């Protein structure tokens, strides 16, 4: 490669921030002092060796962002030089992610969620109040954010402070007051003991399996974990070997919990049979579907279970390296998982020769940087590889050509958290829980207008009505207007569908889908038009922009929803609805990835049930 590096030299602080994550430069090629012994007159690090650093790009950007709050040109060019990445390409990568800014930003940023669950709980007012309070601040910037994965405690905010000692954390039930407190005291609610107890209303109940340890055992305590059955699954797995592990997972009937509901055993088998010595296991912890927060609760509350699941997946598939890709908005999860990885390594449950078995498995965390699309599996691979998070065309599928072009087993956090349990219990017994095609227990993310929002764990088979009752019904007892199943990429159903069993087959029968387990409840008072407009805006923001149907379709859909919102349709409302249908169809049929395929689903379902009149702002009743 012949790369021209342009741009300013790094300041010493910029150089330090980059070196802290990449290590000191070894040679002049990488921006250091010329080392004649190493280099002589040839370039030591050209060609394929240079290209193999590319995946450090995002970690390096993160380091610079955490130090300065943005990515200054000097640091940017230094990173390009260190990693041998052409600056134009690196710029394309950095500008893809909304947590990275190429323009100067204030060192502290408060991200205020403007997504569905939060906007019905007053996030708009919160945002305005914070903007007013910090209008003249040179230190603190206020920004809107898509769902922060804290919907059970809406409205949510996330503080990210850059500097020599970067810090930050999430704030649930945010008010101008508690945000201000966190800003001044630098202590964040998510570091407090009882943080997770608010997220799990069923805390302490005996039927919990996936959530059993959440809020009870210390997340990185190996002894606490083992005292509650931890690592028994891995021990069994080591004893029975890859083939038998896969058979247990197939027998369990486990289906992926990431949204696509693909049979997990089949996926594992395909990766195990794929040819080639190098394979990877990837845990998809990018959880950004509006309304979803179950993976966060697992990562914060029981990270060892996810790690154990990944290690078992490694043994089964023949992979020795795993990545866990955690969204950038989850600093606490990153922290907890890292501690759990370190503790597992120290106690021999990870690393080379796990518990003397001869199996090797290492896990590396990769942080996302603000992009919903990076939850799509192939976009996630590209993101880890240091590229723009653009989905790849399929086929080939990840089981054959995945991360770094190698066969890859990718599963959702919750899917992997089920694995130790299956290996402990035996696949057949696990399959005894649940219904026809939906086996085991499921985490549901219940939010919106319910008395006790949070993650609920129940065996498959519970109906929508029962689940909402479990969450205490609507707080005021007000009638329910609509329920959003599966998140922004999901489907609205009306109160007449309350008896639907929340299983894969049950939801499919009514033309909905379980998706990632989102159940968002809206009572009678909800301005549904506002929510639908937000969903349209969400997809306009989050489309990667690669393919025409989704890139332009998302923007035309948003414009059209705005016209319906303000009551100024082009032609009749009926014409608009049919145009919206045409847009939806091309997005569904011709887009590259699942984002485009599902970007119209929620809107279409809502308009089918409630008609275009639901779009208009409710007129406040005038009292005579």
């Amino acid at each position, binding site marked *: 490669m012949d*790369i021209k590096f342009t741009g300013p030299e790094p300041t010493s602080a910029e150089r330090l921030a980059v070196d802290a994550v990449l290590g000191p430069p070894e040679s002049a090629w990488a921006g250091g002092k010329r080392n004649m012994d190493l280099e002589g007159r040839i370039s030591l690090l050209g060609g394929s060796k240079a290209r193999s650093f590319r995946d450090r790009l995002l970690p390096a950007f993160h380091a610079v962002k955490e130090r300065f709050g943005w990515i200054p040109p000097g640091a940017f060019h230094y990173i390009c030089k260190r990693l041998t990445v052409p*600056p*134009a390409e690196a710029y394309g990568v950095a500008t893809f992610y909304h947590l990275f800014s190429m323009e100067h930003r204030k060192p502290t940023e408060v991200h205020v969620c403007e997504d569905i669950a939060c906007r019905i709980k007053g996030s708009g007012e919160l945002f305005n109040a914070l903007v007013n309070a910090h209008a003249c601040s040179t230190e603190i910037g206020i920004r809107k954010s898509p769902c922060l994965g804290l919907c059970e405690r809406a409205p949510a905010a996330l503080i990210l402070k850059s500097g020599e000692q970067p810090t930050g954390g999430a704030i649930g039930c945010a008010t101008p007051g508690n945000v201000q407190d966190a800003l001044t005291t630098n202590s964040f609610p998510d570091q407090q003991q009882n943080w997770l107890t608010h997220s799990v209303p069923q805390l302490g109940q005996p039927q919990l399996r996936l959530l059993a340890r959440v809020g009870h055992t210390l997340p990185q305590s190996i002894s606490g974990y083992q005292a509650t059955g931890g690592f028994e699954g891995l021990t069994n797995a080591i004893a029975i070997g890859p083939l038998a592990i896969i058979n247990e997972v197939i027998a369990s009937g486990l289906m992926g919990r990431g949204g696509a509901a693909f049979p997990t055993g089949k996926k594992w088998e395909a990766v195990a049979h794929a040819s080639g010595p190098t394979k990877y296991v990837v845990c998809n912890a990018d959880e950004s579907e509006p309304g979803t927060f179950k993976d966060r609760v697992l990562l914060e509350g029981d990270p060892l279970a996810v790690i154990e699941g990944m290690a078992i997946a490694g043994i089964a598939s023949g992979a020795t390296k795993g990545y866990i890709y955690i969204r950038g908005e989850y600093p606490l999860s990153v922290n907890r998982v890292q501690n759990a990885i370190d503790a597992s390594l120290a106690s021999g449950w990870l690393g080379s020769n796990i518990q003397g078995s001869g199996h090797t498995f290492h896990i590396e965390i990769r942080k996302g940087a603000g992009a919903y699309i990076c939850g799509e599996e192939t976009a996630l691979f590209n993101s880890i590889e240091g590229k723009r998070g653009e989905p790849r065309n399929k086929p080939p599928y990840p089981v054959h050509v995945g991360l770094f072009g190698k066969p890859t087993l990718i599963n959702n956090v919750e899917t992997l958290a089920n694995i130790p349990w299956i290996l402990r219990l035996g696949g057949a017994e696990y399959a005894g829980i649940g219904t026809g095609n939906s086996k085991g227990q499921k985490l549901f993310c219940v939010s919106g207008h319910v008395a006790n929002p949070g993650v609920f764990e129940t065996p498959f088979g519970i109906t929508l009505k029962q689940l909402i009752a479990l969450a205490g019904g609507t707080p005021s007892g007000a009638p329910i207007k609509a329920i959003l199943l599966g998140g922004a990429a999901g489907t609205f159903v009306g109160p007449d569908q309350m008896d639907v069993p929340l299983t894969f087959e049950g939801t499919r029968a009514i033309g909905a889908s379980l998706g990632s387990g989102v159940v968002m409840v809206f009572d009678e008072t909800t301005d549904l038009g506002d929510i639908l407009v937000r969903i349209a805006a969400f997809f306009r923001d989050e489309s990667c922009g690669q393919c025409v149907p989704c890139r332009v379709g*998302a923007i035309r859909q948003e414009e059209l929803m705005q016209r319906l919102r303000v009551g100024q349709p082009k032609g009749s409302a009926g014409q608009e609805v049919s145009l919206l249908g045409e847009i939806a169809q091309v997005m569904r*049929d011709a887009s*590259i990835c699942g984002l485009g395929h599902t970007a119209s689903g929620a809107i279409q379902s809502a308009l089918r049930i409630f008609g275009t009149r639901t779009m208009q702002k409710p007129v406040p009743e005038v009292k005579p």
Partner: protein
Amino acid sequence: MSDSSYWFQPPPRPSLIPMRPQTPISPPVEVSIDGEKVSVPAGSTILDACKKIGRDTPTICYHDTLEPVNVCRVCVVEVEGSRILVPSCSRKVEPEMVIQTASDRVRHSRKMVLEFLQSSVDLSTAPQILDQARRYQTNPARYGDPSPPAIQNERDHHHAGHHEIPSGEMAQTVAQPPKVDNNLYVRDYAKCLLCYKCVEACGTDAQNTFAIAVAGRGFDGRISTEYNKPLPDSACVYCGNCIAVCPTGALSFKSEFDMRQAGTWDESLQTQTDTICSYCGVGCTLTLHVQENKIVKVTSPFEQEITEGNLCIKGRFGYSHVQNIEE
């Protein structure tokens, strides 16, 4: 020098002219397209098969000399057993594939893709795409009048994940003033439909210079140098290979751009003459486009097996001495 010093002996002459290695022949694959059986070599794409029986399939982001990126989705076809339509330009044929190229779903998607592009991009210098749009009877007007153009460099500052909520009254576009920052070529991104071809040509598919890449996200995606630097400050080497593959005229010779602005560009007055570049031993084929006895641009035939239509700055732009006429 003694006879034993063998080190200066030239290597033996090759007995054959170096040629591309032969690709092994694998058995052909038979597929059905609109009910008609077609047999094509294994490894062919559906598009190859369509072309073989004269099914005219629109393509925009596809180019014979570039790796398919399959992003425009105008070439989609229906394949039995696939829930979604598949891009014919990149999907390889499989035995017994049943393909529909003219179903309602296919026609609808193609129409919408073309209509979406018309409603958001200036296609005035892309006559082939406009032809296709007419064929599929698009009606871009139904999205409203185009919104006014952005000011210079405004779109280059759009931040991923944050946009102004539109009123919906007008259709948003990528309209913006052209970037004229050098004497050789102009980047008029109001005409850019983000086909990724120029990025591929600048990168691993031809030039390996990596001066431009896709930046931003979603509808704010754009082709950019790092920090939106002007071309002379970037890594660009002015080979012009990006201009050669641009399907919309977003990238054009400065000479063509100026003439179009002045209203003097007239392809009916132009002749094309092939010659050999005399600057170096590679000997690239040059096609000189001449209007009124002046070279107005230089291309190179893509069919040229060795160079595949690529040139360097000398062949592409080094022609002014030929016509150094006092004006």
